[in-house]
């Protein structure tokens, strides 16, 4: 592989065979659509299409083109093993994936290498990144509900985005319904997620998100709820933003 990714703190996957085996196993877990990450795989096509359509509208591209993101610099914050990074790299974007977990980054690198994709994975956090870097697209998918200070985090996201750029944020709303579905349902009843994955108090309402974005002169231009239909075993977008939702933010000027 190229050395463009070697600035990160993560271990190179070719160092220690035991480490490689460990990361390989982790990578396989992340990428197994029927494994632990099954809910994420199910929801992924929906997220990919939502982001792609928003980007194509903003940058005047055709969403039917196989190269619709070419030349666009995209940052995926909390990229995990690259479930979003890889598809967007295939669509031509120059993708930078950051994640604080060294093992996630190693797993992501391993998978991208085997998929013959060039993605710049870095084991770092948004705060540690070079403040002069700029991106056309900033993704914070299912991240804000895990950060300690949502306002400060979104300020950083806004600062790292080009003025002509686009931000997509997805998270869980703080409603009684999200408590019932995301905590009780997903963690306790259906066991989709390990217990303790989410803390309901940290969920973010669209109003809070709007306030933080407005402070940075960004407005929400698109929004969609993400709902699950148990009978069809399908996720779809909806106007119901009570549980899981996504928003597109861009400069109001």
């Amino acid at each position, binding site marked *: *592989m190229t050395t463009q990714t070697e600035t990160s703190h993560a271990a190179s996957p070719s160092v220690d065979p035991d480490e490689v085996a460990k990361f390989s196993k982790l990578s396989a877990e992340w990428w197994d*659509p029927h494994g632990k990450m099954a809910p994420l795989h*199910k929801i992924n096509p929906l997220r*990919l299409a939502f982001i*792609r359509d928003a980007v194509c509208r903003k940058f005047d591209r055709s969403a039917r*083109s*196989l190269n*619709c993101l070419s030349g666009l610099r995209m940052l995926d914050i909390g990229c995990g093993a690259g479930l979003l990074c890889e*598809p*967007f790299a295939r669509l031509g974007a120059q993708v930078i994936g950051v994640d604080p977990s060294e093992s996630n980054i190693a797993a992501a690198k391993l998978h991208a290498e085997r998929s013959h994709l060039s993605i710049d994975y870095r084991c770092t956090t948004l705060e540690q990144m070079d403040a002069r870097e700029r991106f056309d697209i900033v993704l914070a998918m299912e991240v804000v509900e895990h950060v300690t200070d949502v306002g400060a985090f979104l300020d950083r996201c806004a600062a790292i985005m080009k003025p002509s750029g686009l931000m997509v944020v997805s998270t869980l709303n703080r409603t009684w319904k999200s408590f019932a579905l995301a905590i009780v349902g997903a963690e306790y009843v259906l066991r989709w997620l390990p217990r303790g994955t989410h803390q309901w108090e940290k969920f973010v309402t669209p109003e809070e998100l709007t306030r933080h974005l407005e402070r940075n002169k960004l407005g929400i231009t698109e929004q969609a709820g993400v709902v699950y239909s148990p009978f069809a075993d399908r996720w779809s977008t909806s106007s119901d933003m009570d549980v899981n939702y996504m928003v597109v933010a861009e400069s109001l000027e």
Partner: protein
Amino acid sequence: MNDTSADLTLYDVAVVGGGPVGLATAVALAQAEIRVALIASRKPYPDNRTTALLSGSVDFLQRIGVWERCEDKATALRTMRLVDDTRRLIRAPEVRFNSEEIGLDTFGYNIENRELLIALEARAAECPTLTRIDDDAEAIDVTELNVTIRTRQGGVVAARLVVGADGRQSICRDAAGIEVKRRELDQAAMTFNVTHARPHHNVSTEFHTPNGPCVFVPLPGNRSSVVWVASPAEAKRLMALSDEQLSDAAERAMHSILGRVSVGPGRHVFPLAIEQPRQFAKNRIVLAGEAAHVLPPIGAQGLNLGLRDASDIADLVIDTMTRGEDPGNPLALAQFDSRRRNDIASRTMAIDLANRSLLSDFLPMQAARATGLHLLNAIRPLRRIAMREGLAPTWRRLS
């Protein structure tokens, strides 16, 4: 890198099989700029079978730029006539379906498969992202991230998704580990083309005989194609007849409705069977055409179903790839499987039932069939439903 496939060209999709379904799939994908390898040695269509392309198939061929190349070789089908010639105690009345009744100009168009293939080949040659590999697939190896195909002449092709349009003895289906349910029917279909003294007026006529259906479908001019289903012994006898004797036999079978008949060169016989694979997609391989379904030639469903495979597969691959996803990923494969399952299973069941009721000597079955056709004849809304269902399944139009 220690991945040996790195120095190979990795295609998005490899289509195995150069029949109408394989070619149509490859063209539909290449039209969306997907990099497709079509693996099939070029050869002319081996027999003189024809296909009644129903309106959905014509729409699809139009979308992929093929219809304009073969439209002039096709004959419109405006009336379908079913005649009960079972000579049984309880006989069904003659039923005529007119395309105008459901607000259509035609039910479809009859075309020689050979002409359709020429048009598809010409269109395929125009597609810049379609690579034609003029060789046959010999061995297929599925790995986690792609599929490699070795050809007879030693070539190797890798792709993320394989479309197995390689017929009844599909090696793609074997490589995917998909089992097939097979039921041999004690029937054979004989095909040939005829010229006749009187014009057909765009009417296709299906005589239901105790052996199975005998169908005359219009071709350009005073010509028709014939599919004659009979017992294997009877088919063998017909195959052995001289042209003159077969002409007489065909004229008798159609009760001389088109006057004097004379058979053209070339006749073929096919043993009939119903085959259904247990899955339609698995392990980066999706099945299309006769690899996915083998049906008796009743109601013009076979190749029309195959073209729906092609159209559905292309739509799903395009949806998956325009999201940047790997077209052979397990969730996409599960989607292919469920999408094709309803359509193929319902068609297979309907045709199987129709065929069984024709063959049955069991009185209630004959009565039910006769009643069914009586009702179809008498009740206009029911006729329209039957006609529409024949052209495209309800769930497809609703979605």
